[in-house]
């Protein structure tokens, strides 16, 4: 077998291997590398872990309550399911009702979570504060501004 032919065969094998690899990875990554779960995923897939778990979603409107100094409770939602969260600590600046958030904590029961850490997640929209006020005045403000 000449060197060139041997290389050719190897190139073909390599291409097949790489093709299979790309397919395998593309078909499987999408759903599987998770930094956090949504409340719906948590409930539907019945994920119940004893360890720490991360849950992401929006803070439900008018659900944030201050229990005492540095103690909060709020609901986290993905517009389908809600979870009640208890948290003791300082909330990040960007944390407010209607904004995205990711919490890291322990599951207490099906509907309640005790958060150990709260992150605020901001979206990819940037806009001057003055314009937003104007948009709201004219009732043109949409949540998913694009």
């Amino acid at each position: 077998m000449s060197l060139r032919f041997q290389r050719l065969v190897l190139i073909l094998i390599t291409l097949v291997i790489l093709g299979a690899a790309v397919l395998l990875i593309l078909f499987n990554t999408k759903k599987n590398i998770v930094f956090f779960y949504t409340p719906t995923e948590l409930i539907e897939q019945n994920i119940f872990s004893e360890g720490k778990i991360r849950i992401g979603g929006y803070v439900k409107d008018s659900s944030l309550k201050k229990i005492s100094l540095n103690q909060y409770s709020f609901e986290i939602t993905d517009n389908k399911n809600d979870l009640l969260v208890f948290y003791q600590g300082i909330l990040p600046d960007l944390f407010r009702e209607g904004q995205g958030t990711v919490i890291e904590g322990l599951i207490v029961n099906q509907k309640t979570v005790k958060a150990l850490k709260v992150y605020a997640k901001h979206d990819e929209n940037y806009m001057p504060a003055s314009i937003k006020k104007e948009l709201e005045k004219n009732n043109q403000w949409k949540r998913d501004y694009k």
Partner: protein
Amino acid sequence: MLLINNLSFFRNDNLIFENVNVSLSNGQVIQIRGKNGSGKTTFLKVILNILISKTGEIFWEGQNIKKNIFKFYNQVTYIADHNTSSRKLSVLDNIKFWKELSSSNLSDDDSLLLLETFNLKKYLNVETMYLSSGEIKKLELLRLVLEQKKLWILDEPYNHLDDLSTEILNQTFVDHINNDGIILFASHYNPVISKLEILEFN
């Protein structure tokens, strides 16, 4: 039939040798002589396409060796100045590996006989790391006969050899030439071989 045309070699823009023309026909033996660092080893490696030169061509039996390098390699035994035997394998294992790898059809009895002539048979099942450097060199040279190739290319074959072994090696060379073989070797030692031709390197 080995033909070397206008071969030059540069290493990092430094000229090692320039415009070498050699032609080797069947039954010819050439010794390359030269000072240390004159590029003898490099020259052998360029012929074997281990180092690649941009200028010059090498033909084996009328065909440029780069066209089908394995076809050329299949006719060559190359013995470098270091030991290709694996330290952790026994003499027998090494010999078997070389023999089978080069698809040689030498019989087992013959290879044992070879070991006998070089006085290595007692080490048959000993790992080569326990052999002396002269004995390892002899084991190395066994490949010449084991592999049964037409073109022999050797780098400093006489290093570490005692007088008796030198004698045997010379005899092996003569036998090979008489069988229409071709030998090209680099050495500072001047062996006594009839028909020896010399290529000076500087």
